[in-house]
């Protein structure tokens, strides 16, 4: 069974909007794609389509937040992270304003549109801003609970979502801010993944079992704050760590984990992600495979890593 995060996003906004009359949503002319337009249909007076002007949209939301309203800004992740970087840093984060920054079509998921639309540096940028909570959703069922948690936080939150349908994981709990979830226990290697790569990591763990390797799989979608305790506990047991993300290997989840491990418990590490290059157009799954973001690549790197212990 599969469901797209963006569909869940549109539905969740409507559902929360019924209960919270201070929820306002802004989109930059992609509301039919991100599905924030569903909120616009339900609550036209609380929906603002700002046109293709992400910078202005981000600061408008900041102004609204200062007046006690709870804005969600919605657009493609790459344009939020790069066209409104200054606004997110200098106004939203500097002032610690409760704006939810909802980046859709993240990673390579806008696959046919090519490098201009593929967001492989957003985590590196967002992670470096003080006050900002950074979350990567791994399935559609995460969307509404995470939005509700984000609305309880008195500060800005970046939520990264994939465009395409993805497997329903039937996790015990939805993504929880500040918590890692152990999806599978193992003793030979820790595989920490986020977003759409979580099911790939689980599939790789199945493959590894056939090779005699027991992999522990963590959903590390709460990139910031990162659950240091669960992470350290896991690597203390397994002795090595493989990060998996639909992002550049520079500055994303792998870097966040490395920053923790190098200080507290250095262990052999390796990284699955886009290897510091611009990506290209194509069908989503073959595109991901081309850049080594698939279960086979995860298994291969995991085997190499366990051999280094």
């Amino acid at each position, binding site marked *: 069974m599969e469901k797209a995060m963006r569909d869940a996003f549109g539905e969740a906004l409507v559902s929360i909007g019924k209960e919270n009359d201070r929820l306002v949503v802004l989109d930059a002319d992609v509301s039919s794609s991100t599905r924030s337009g569903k909120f616009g249909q339900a609550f036209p*007076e*609380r929906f*603002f389509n*700002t*046109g293709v*002007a992400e*910078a*202005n*949209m*981000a*600061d*408008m*939301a*900041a*102004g*609204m*937040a*200062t*007046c*006690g*309203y709870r*804005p969600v800004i919605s657009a493609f992740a790459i344009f939020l992270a790069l066209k409104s970087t*200054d*606004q997110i840093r*200098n*106004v939203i984060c*500097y*002032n*610690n304003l409760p704006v939810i920054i909802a980046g859709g079509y993240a990673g390579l998921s806008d696959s046919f549109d090519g490098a201009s639309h593929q967001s492989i540096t957003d985590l590196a940028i967002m992670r470096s801003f003080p006050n900002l909570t950074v979350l990567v959703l791994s399935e559609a069922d995460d969307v509404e609970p995470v939005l509700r948690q984000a609305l309880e936080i008195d500060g800005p939150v970046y939520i990264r979502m994939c465009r395409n349908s993805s497997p329903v994981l039937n996790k015990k709990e939805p993504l929880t801010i500040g918590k890692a979830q152990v999806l599978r226990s193992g003793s030979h290697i820790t595989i920490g993944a986020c977003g759409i790569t979580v099911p790939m990591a689980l599939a790789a763990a199945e493959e590894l079992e056939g090779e005699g390797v027991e992999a522990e799989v963590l959903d590390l979608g709460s990139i910031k704050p990162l659950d240091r305790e669960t992470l350290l506990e896991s690597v203390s047991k397994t002795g090595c760590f493989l990060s998996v993300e639909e992002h550049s290997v520079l500055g994303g989840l792998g870097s966040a984990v490395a920053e923790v491990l190098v200080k507290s418990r250095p262990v052999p590490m390796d990284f699955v992600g886009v290897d510091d290059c611009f990506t290209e157009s194509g069908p989503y799954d073959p595109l991901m495979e081309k850049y080594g973001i698939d279960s086979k690549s995860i298994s291969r790197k995991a085997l190499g890593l366990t051999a280094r212990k």
Partner: protein
Amino acid sequence: MQTLKLSNKELQAQAQRFRIDVLKTLHDKGTGHWGGSASIADLLTYLYYRRMNIRVDEPQWEDRDRLILSKGHASPMLYAVLEGRGFLEKGTLSSFRDLNSSLQGHPCMNKTPGVEMSTGALGHGLSVGLGMSLISRMKGNSFYTYVIVGEGCLNEGQSWEAIMAAGKFAPEKLVLLIDYNKVQLDGTANEIMPLDPLADKFRAFNWNVSDRTFDGHDMESIEESFRWLDEQTDGPSVIIYDTVKGKGVSFMENSNAWHGAPVGDDHFEKALPELTEQLAKWEDD
């Protein structure tokens, strides 16, 4: 509303005292922006002493009028006026840009009472003000949002995104106040990035624009500009003030050299008597 019963002449004198306070502070600190601070002294004084619906003892009062100083480098003048009006304790201005001071180099809303938005990176103010004014309308037209920009802000593309969006969303209590001193850091506006015909640009974006510009250093003229504003009934409004960068010190006026240069002893000793002499004229008239 906590208004003060000051005449225009008294307001004019008060603005001049703020110029003197700021010049002394910038001289003492050896840092800060004189040119753009001096050019908005009269407008800020009018706003905070005559126009704005504010509560000094309750800076976060929900229905207060908002003022965003988008040209955040003019922070010393904003701080001087906030101190004069009672938002800050007397003497706070002297800690401008000090380590651990509540007065940052550029305005910070979380450190300084009365500052509505952190600014400094140019071009943000109008977008933020648009967001505030849309909430004002949603809540029943309760408060005005004033945004002060200079040429530098209007060089930024984001300002024009905001001008376009304000034309679309048309909040009636959004007011853009342009400190049009025609000089920016690297030279004159005409050399660096010409903005004329400025009023026509706003008309084309469906803003309310007055038929004339106003003298940003004359309280009667500033008062007239707000009488014009009060006649506008819908949509965003822009008021263009002719101002002089570095106003009040003859050798600093209209000069990009005094955008942000430190005020050394020699220059301070020449400048202070000029400002004091003008103040005496307002006080004696």
